[in-house]
């Protein structure tokens, strides 16, 4: 008996050892990044990672010397609006594809999917020409309007809505609920996990945008955060690496919060019972 226990314990130990090593390898760059954000620029430039001159100076500089707060606010507004719009429009179109019966339903859905085959980068030139003609350049609208809905979101929610037991639809038909009531009171709560996943996905997608805002915004008033991070860096001359690193750390924090909230809901959603 004791021998088997020892073996199991050893196995457990080795498992954990492996997991710890992997965790260190994966987290190391992240922690090095956070650590360097406390170091003075000169120590970073010399590669002196184990310096003890740590301070919050870089963070103070990032907030006081650069418009990073403005960029955070811009990005927060744009990402939130994009997320809410995608949740509403994608869930509504997914509902239509699952619960409404209409002619050419499959064909239209295929058309939806086809748009997913073109990467966004391939559509940039026509999209740019369109927003230029509409006079939307350098404005919040240009960062929101093209992303109000997404084929991927519709596709994902459709797959999830199809899992909703048909009994629920039948029961609500008997209760006399109309489509909107069924959608709002039953389908959405039932698919909470998918909704939160899509919300986190679209929020982060919007938060991390670089190419599109870079092309379509020209002033600090509408600039998004990732482009703002690039702005802190100069091309050839002296760079304040400490301050840039501190800004990068500030920018990462909201995305981590979104991930943690998403994960929390994800877990609680898994434990909730369904029909049976």
């Amino acid at each position, binding site marked *: 008996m004791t021998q088997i226990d020892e073996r199991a314990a050893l196995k457990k130990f080795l498992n954990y050892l492996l997991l710890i090593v992997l965790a260190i390898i994966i987290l190391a760059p992240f922690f090095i990044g956070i650590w360097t954000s406390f170091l003075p620029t000169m120590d970073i430039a010399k590669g002196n990672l184990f310096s003890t001159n740590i301070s919050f100076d870089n963070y103070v500089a990032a907030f006081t010397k650069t418009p990073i707060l403005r960029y955070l606010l811009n990005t927060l507004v744009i990402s939130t609006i994009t997320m809410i719009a995608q949740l509403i429009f994608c869930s509504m179109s997914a509902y239509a594809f699952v619960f409404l019966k209409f002619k050419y339903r499959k064909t239209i859905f295929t058309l939806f999917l086809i748009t997913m085959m073109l990467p966004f980068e391939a559509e940039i030139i026509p999209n740019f020409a369109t927003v230029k003609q509409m006079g939307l350049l350098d404005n919040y609208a240009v960062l929101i309007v093209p992303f109000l809905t997404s084929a991927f979101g519709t596709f994902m929610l459709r797959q999830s809505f199809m899992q909703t037991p048909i009994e629920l639809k039948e029961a609500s038909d008997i209760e006399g609920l109309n489509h909107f009531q069924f959608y709002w009171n039953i389908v959405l709560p039932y698919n909470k996990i998918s909704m939160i996943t899509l919300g986190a996905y679209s929020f982060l997608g919007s938060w991390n945008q670089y190419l599109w805002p*870079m092309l379509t915004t020209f002033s600090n008033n509408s600039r998004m955060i990732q482009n703002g991070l690039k*702005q802190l860096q100069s091309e050839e001359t002296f760079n304040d690496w400490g301050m840039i690193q501190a800004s990068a750390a500030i920018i990462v924090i909201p995305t981590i919060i979104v991930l943690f909230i998403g994960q929390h809901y994800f877990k609680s959603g898994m434990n909730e019972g369904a029909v049976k």
Partner: protein
Amino acid sequence: MSKYKKLVIPLIAVLGILLVAVFGHSLSVKSADNHNRIPIVFWHEMGGPSEDALEKVVDGFNKSQTKYKVIPKYQGTYDEAIQKILQTHNTSTSPAVFQAFDISTAQMLHSGYTTPVQNFIDEDNYDVSKISSVARAFYANKGKQQAMPFNTSQPVLYYNASLLKKYNITPPPVSPSYSDITRVAKELYEKSHHKVKGMTVQVYGWFLEQALANANAQLANNNDGHTGNPTKVSINNPDTVEFLEWIRENIKSGDFIDYGSGASAGANQTAGFLSDKVGIFIQSSASIGQLTKNNKNELGITYFPHPDNKKANGVAIGGAALWISNDKPKDVQRGAFEFIKYTLKPEVQAQWQKSTGYLALNKDSQKTSILKDLYAKNPESKVPGQQLATAKANYSNSGILMEGMQLTRQLEEIAMETVYNGGNIKKALDTADKNINDNLTQLNRANGYN
């Protein structure tokens, strides 16, 4: 369900507050500076500390007169900005004056979207002789000034003077030859018992082009594009071979360290230099700020090295110029030129050099107290300016007026990388020649320049 309803109202409230905060702020800014001035939108690519310095220049101009108001707007990297400038031309958002980098000169010129500054120079009888001729020649075509050089740098050679003193090594002369540098690099490597590598040259196409310019050789035909659109490039010439053989010799004797290519290579190389891992490297003169601030070592600077049997022809400039768009009304373009004239004033240029490391282009800047004080404090910071002043502009050191320079540089860097890794020099250059020429032929045909 009530859970969701509870969430909705605070969410809307937060969003509403944010919107008011954002738009309310910009509205109040707009109403504050309405003084009937003509707005001159200025697009630039100066990020970080250079942006602060640039904003001071703009503030100075706005305070110096009451007719115009320059509005600076950052646009991303040089490469990104070029596309934005070309694609937004003729829209209300396009700039009146913009900054475009050295290797996009041919592209800008051929776009037909700009008014040559020569027109305004003639109107005003503005005296350009005070402005560095090498810098002017870079942005001129057929005797006409197309754009005005602004932030200008030149590659220089930096060495760790403290280390050389420590090991009793004679420093290189101010205009060194390849073998002068080899001698110092080898001595440093040997005398430090292999603790300090002697030298490095970053894999960067700009340096290869500069080696050619300094040897008075041309990369492209039609005098590097200054007397006609280039149709052929010959990178496989004796001067390139000599440059690469010089590097190869140092690689073989072990005193050379290769930091690779790209932006991180530049940063790593600087880190290596500051922490005494390598004694000599070549970099833009604009890096000087990074190398003097808090550097415990004494810094030495020389001109870009030249081939042993040749006199230094002087190197071309890097950096960017200010262009005037032709899609704006006459008075706006006039305002743009007034701004350009302001940026070239001796004091403005002197302050610009002091705060960024870019070189002052106005010859009178050297007489200002700003630069005199700077030189008194850091005598070595005088060297890059001297290199610029001693060079006489000719076709070889006025840059390469050719489209597709971005790709050309990449192909040059592949050739350099091959040689650094032990490849055959002639073969690597032949491959580069073929690829660059293929690309050039295609580009010329696509643009209808034949």
